[in-house]
């Protein structure tokens, strides 16, 4: 039985953690994820969990603590944002290469340079090649639901990779919305216990983790890791199917919104999907066949599936909420454009880099993007493929 409540995204994730009662939680505060360790500290203080709560002196140490704990056979979790995730960068790779299923609640915030506390996806996008699974949420409900599915994906013997459960800083993490919470008992039953075959402690044989992996072996281990990432695709769908059977809410690699006959479509990640959906309803009322692909799973990237979803669309704008400084588009654009390369008749495609460092993106803004796509369809001229949107300018911009 689901319980209707009103929670912020941070509260939702902290509550999911409480319900799961992980063995070790290690975190260092950083805006906007700080509330998660705070809520969790209160759960510890009130005896609602029996987790070992390690108040580390840095994010590097929070990830390192999780690495030690996970290798010891414990379920280890952390939360962070922005520079905190960047400070973990080195050990994110180690967590993945050591095949340790750690769960990280990432509350997306722009990556410092210059320092700014607001949302974009530059922090987790920077870690996209670290070997972590990455699942993104549109709202607090999805952040909660994704968190409940995280461990079953990450701990699966064919996967054994760490997982990042991402939500948009402030927009999702701090906004209080209605949410359906599942009962503690049902959550515990769904998530289950963690029993790794090998662990540093509590087994009849020792375990050695983290070798110097010389040239004759290291590539083989990286290939194993790449295979595990491929294996995760099936597991993600299996867990989502079981989640739907258990709790009634459907999840996949991405959500297709009004895509059945869409001629113009956006591909984006996170809370902007809500804005885009409102815009689509407005445009549909005017007869515009607008659609949306909201990417939920970014790692592993659902390449063939995305291509299938876009194959009948005439023009697509990929909305990147982070810069790649590649001079040719953001990270989502690179993946989506590559995915469509094998289509016989790929849609025309542009990249719209928007919302950096919390720059607002309203329904009217999204509408401009759709109208730009309609113009591309009409004229057949794609124009500039890599566009920034939302910045002030003293010259006429594409959008």
């Amino acid at each position: 039985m689901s319980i209707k409540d009103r929670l912020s995204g941070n509260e939702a994730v902290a509550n999911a953690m409480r319900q799961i009662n992980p063995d070790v939680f290690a975190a260092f505060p950083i805006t906007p994820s700080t509330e998660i360790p705070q809520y969790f500290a209160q759960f510890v203080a009130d005896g609602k969990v029996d987790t070992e709560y390690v108040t580390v002196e840095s994010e590097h140490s929070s990830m390192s603590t999780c690495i030690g704990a996970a290798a010891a056979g414990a379920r280890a979790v952390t939360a962070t944002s922005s520079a905190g995730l960047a400070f973990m960068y080195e050990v994110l790779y180690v967590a993945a290469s050591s095949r340790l299923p750690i769960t990280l609640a990432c509350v997306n915030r722009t990556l410092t340079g210059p320092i700014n506390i607001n949302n974009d996806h530059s922090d987790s996008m920077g870690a996209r090649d670290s070997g972590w699974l990455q699942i993104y949420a549109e709202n607090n409900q999805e952040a909660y639901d994704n968190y409940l599915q995280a461990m079953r994906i990450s701990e699966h013997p064919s996967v054994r990779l760490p997982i990042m459960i991402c939500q948009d800083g402030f927009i999702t993490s701090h906004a209080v919305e209605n949410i359906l919470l599942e009962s503690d008992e049902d959550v515990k039953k769904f998530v289950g216990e963690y029993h790794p075959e090998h662990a540093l402690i509590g087994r009849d044989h020792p375990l050695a983790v983290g070798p110097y992996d010389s040239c004759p072996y290291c590539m083989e281990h990286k290939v194993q890791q790449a295979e595990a990432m491929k294996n995760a695709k099936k597991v993600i769908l299996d867990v989502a199917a079981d989640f739907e059977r258990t709790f009634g809410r459907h999840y996949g690699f991405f959500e297709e919104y009004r895509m059945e006959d869409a001629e113009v479509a956006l591909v984006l990640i996170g809370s902007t999907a809500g804005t885009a959906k409102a815009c689509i309803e407005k445009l549909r009322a005017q007869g515009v066949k607008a659609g949306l692909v909201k990417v939920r799973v970014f790692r592993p990237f659902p390449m063939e599936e995305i291509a299938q979803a876009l194959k009948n669309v005439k023009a697509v704008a990929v909305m990147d909420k982070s810069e790649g400084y590649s001079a040719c588009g953001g990270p989502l654009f690179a993946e989506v454009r590559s995915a469509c390369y094998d289509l016989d008749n790929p849609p025309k495609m542009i990249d719209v880099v928007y919302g950096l460092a919390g720059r607002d993106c309203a329904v009217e803004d999204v509408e401009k993007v759709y109208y730009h796509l309609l113009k591309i369809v009409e004229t057949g001229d794609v124009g500039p493929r890599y566009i920034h949107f939302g910045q002030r300018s003293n010259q006429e911009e594409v959008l």
Partner: protein
Amino acid sequence: MSYIKAENINEQSPWQEMTPGGEIYEGGTSRLTKTGEWRSNRPVWDPAKCRQCLLCAPFCPDSSIPVKDCKRLDFDLDHCKGCGICQKVCPFAAITMEQEVHQ
């Protein structure tokens, strides 16, 4: 429980037959590496001169002076690298270093 053993992993092993993440599920598999080949000087133990004081044993960086029931045994020449520390700490000149020669 069955798992992949270090002795079955080598530079010809396909990725499917290697342990995930480079884990090893046994202790002391380094014994499979015969570091004695590095040695240019060989320690020679003279049991007649040895008083079994065991001052040599803890100084060996290569765990190559086996001790059993409070008595040292002969050197583990499969692994001894010939550093010569044991010869220096022996108060009874029971250890000498000899040049390794190629037969």
